[in-house]
């Protein structure tokens, strides 16, 4: 039964990912991105990482995907929809992806011999203790990053009075 769940979830994730990448219309690809992120949240859930599942849904799907949609809407113009969305280095990119896959192939199939053993425990409490105990410093650092990003975004998107 868990195999079925895994395969269905991975199908959703991969197909929507392909859609994000290949669709000409940016709007559509933005939407599909949201779907793909939700699929990933499902995978987290299948892996028993319940806090991750919830935070993924909350931040990625709710926040980032929606933000992307906004930006696409703001910058999008009808004339561009028909333009080719793929630039001329796709062949090189394809080759690189193939090469990388070949390189990692051995690791993926060798390392993955571990089999699911114990059932998943709730992780949120342990995460909380960990973040404020051992990982207090990285936690603070991340908060700093977030503030910096926030301020940066505000500065960039402020309307400029000076010459264009």
């Amino acid at each position, binding site marked *: 039964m868990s195999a079925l769940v895994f395969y269905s979830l991975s199908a959703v994730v991969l197909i929507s990912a392909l859609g*994000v990448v290949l669709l000409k219309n940016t709007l559509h690809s933005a939407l599909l991105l949201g779907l793909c992120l939700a699929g990933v949240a499902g995978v987290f859930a299948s892996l028993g990482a319940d806090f991750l599942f919830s935070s993924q849904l909350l931040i990625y799907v709710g926040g980032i995907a929606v933000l992307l949609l906004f930006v696409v809407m703001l910058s999008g113009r009808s004339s561009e929809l028909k333009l080719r969305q793929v630039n001329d280095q796709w062949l090189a990119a394809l080759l690189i992806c193939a090469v990388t896959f070949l390189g990692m192939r051995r690791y993926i199939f060798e390392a993955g011999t571990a089999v699911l053993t114990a059932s998943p425990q709730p992780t949120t409490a342990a995460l909380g203790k960990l973040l404020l105990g051992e990982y207090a410093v990285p936690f603070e650092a991340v908060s700093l990053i977030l503030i910096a990003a926030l301020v940066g975004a505000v500065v960039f998107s402020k309307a400029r009075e000076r010459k264009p």
Partner: protein
Amino acid sequence: MTLAHYLALSAALFLIGLFGALTRRNIIGILMGIELMFNAANINLAAFNRFLHPEGIVGSAVALFVIAVAAAEIVVGLALVLAIYRSQNTVYAEDISLLKG
């Protein structure tokens, strides 16, 4: 399901993201590709946590951090996109080459 499956899934997702980042002409497309690569990394982390150290939660913690940083990164990226859009009236990567060598 074995770890290999999850690793295969995250590898596939990572490559699709990479391909997207390299080929999309629209900067937002590139950003989306990068988001996919972040998520692939998270899948890996969660899978390792689940398969190799079921008792521990460090994998999820790091995933969390990744998510936070990714969010900050995408916010700044989009702000930039808007700024470029407003000043250059374009969002296509080829047109933006002021920082030429």
